[in-house]
């Protein structure tokens, strides 16, 4: 399966998750967006040696994945893009920071296996990476892009940016399908080639670019015909008590772990 097909399939899976009937999907998007940002903010604010309280921060992704009936495999698969840089940055910590923090095991005069500060800081870095990706997955698996855009408008993000995000999302599927057709056609004409030959770069992508520009004109005319006046009309969502209680309880829990529980660990 090609990279494009994989991405289209991933997108379809996400759309199915976003459209399912689940109480977490029905929560107000603003609360879920803010909760995700607060969780990531508090998670990355832990010191590089604060491993124990950071392990407790796993309660949110664990809750989200189990209660939200999400696949942990899918969540971990999303790590593939950011993992190389995180690993590169963290992998050297054990070599440069060799101060021993504690020993594992050891009895009868033997000291056991030394655990250095570098190892701890590497593990905390990896955990922070995992948690942030998993919490973002919980958000996007239970909230559609339209709902996230609605939340962004409530936060006064300029409508130009929000409209562009919505259009990118809507046309990404169309464009990706077109890219897939182009790649398939190219592969059939030029088998066993690793990518597109440099002589075809300009004409192949250039033609596609011009077609996209023409398509943008058609899109604009269609939008005008449907009454577009510079902004998308979004249905205002009612706020229920649970929409406030859910993010509030989690935020209190995170603050307790960050400022109270940390003293006992």
């Amino acid at each position: 399966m090609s990279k494009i097909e994989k991405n289209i399939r991933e997108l379809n899976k996400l759309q199915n998750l976003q459209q399912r009937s689940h109480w977490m999907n029905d929560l107000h998007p603003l609360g879920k967006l803010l909760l995700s940002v607060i969780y990531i903010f508090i998670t990355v604010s832990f010191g590089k040696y604060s491993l124990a309280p950071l392990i407790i921060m796993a309660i949110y992704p664990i809750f989200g994945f189990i209660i939200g009936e999400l696949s942990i495999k899918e969540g971990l698969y999303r790590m593939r893009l950011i993992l190389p840089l995180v690993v590169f940055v963290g992998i050297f910590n054990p070599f440069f920071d060799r101060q021993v923090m504690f020993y594992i095991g050891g009895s009868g005069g033997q000291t056991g296996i030394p655990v250095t500060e570098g190892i701890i800081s590497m593990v905390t870095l990896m955990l922070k990476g995992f948690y942030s990706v998993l919490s973002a997955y919980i958000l996007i698996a239970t909230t559609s892009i339209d709902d996230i855009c609605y939340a962004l408008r409530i936060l006064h993000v300029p409508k130009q940016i929000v409209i562009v995000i919505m259009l990118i999302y809507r046309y990404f599927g169309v464009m990706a399908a077109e890219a897939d057709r182009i790649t398939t056609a190219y592969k059939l004409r030029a088998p066993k080639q690793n990518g597109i030959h440099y002589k075809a770069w300009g004409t192949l992508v250039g033609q596609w670019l011009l077609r996209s520009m023409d398509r943008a004109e058609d899109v604009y005319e269609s939008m005008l015909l449907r009454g577009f006046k510079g902004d998308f009309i979004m249905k205002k969502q009612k706020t229920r008590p649970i929409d406030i209680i859910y993010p509030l309880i989690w935020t209190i829990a995170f603050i307790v772990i960050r400022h109270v529980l940390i003293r006992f660990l």
Partner: protein
Amino acid sequence: MHMADALVAPAVAGTMYVLSTGAATVSVKKVREENDPKKIPVMGVMGAFVFATQMLNFTIPGTGSSGHLCGGMMLSAMLGPYAGFLTMIGVLLVQCLLFADGGLLALGCNIWNMAFYGCFIGALLIWRPMMKKGASRVKIIAASIIGCVLTLQMGAFSVTLETLISGITELPFSVFVATMQPIHLAIGFVEGLITAAVLVFVYEARPELLWGIGESETVARKEAKLSLKNTIVVIAVLAALAGGIVSLFASAFPDGLEWSMEQVAGTAELEAEGGAYAVAEGIQEATSLLPDYAFKNSESAIGTSFSGIVGALVVVAILVGACYAFRFFKSKKSGVTAA
């Protein structure tokens, strides 16, 4: 080059959000002033186009490997810096949410590293001045390559700074920079070539779609054309010269790691005693072509300059060798699999 949330401290993330928001506010104001309602759908569709193009792999000539387009420079050349910047914000946010490429907290950093440099520096300081007196194939190729290389270098350097200021890695500054910059030099060059190929095609087919091209564009089009191959050769020579000239200004002061050692041990080069050390030192002295980045027994500036060029050539040679080795082992592996 997408940064993950784990790599930034909240203070760094916040600062970069503020900076990116400032650039976005200016861009929104400028796009509003242009008062072109057609532009918003064009931005959306172009954003989706760039997003989809990133999934196409392009063969890198002579290496056997492939690369893909990033799009910041191309968006600016088509839409202008302000609309291009807003479109890149959209692309980065959708990437972050849909494919976990980047993070919500690190979004401010990613916008700055990838969209700000590509759109503002690339478009306003490179593309526009070069196209002011009319466009030509050569100018488009040169602007694309210089723009992509320079903006990617700036972005990679920002990633290094943001990560180090966040204090999450023990990696010394010099090691981090020495790893990040050369990789992104190669990536920037390939992206520049792809961007140039696409923009030259647009210029030949519909030049009115390109941003920032002067009135005398049609006159400039009639100028003597230089082939893509010749232009790349000219740019490669310029890069080699730049490497040589820039190395003349290389700092004589110790780098961060040496400075730290000097503070701790009182000397930048630690003395080691013992047979193994003596043997290793002998081998190193015998094999080092340019010790301390200059000719042996030479204090001249030419030595430093030469070492800059030789260093660049050695890096290129290693890169090409590594690529061929990669291709050789890959083909061997696929041959074994097929058998």
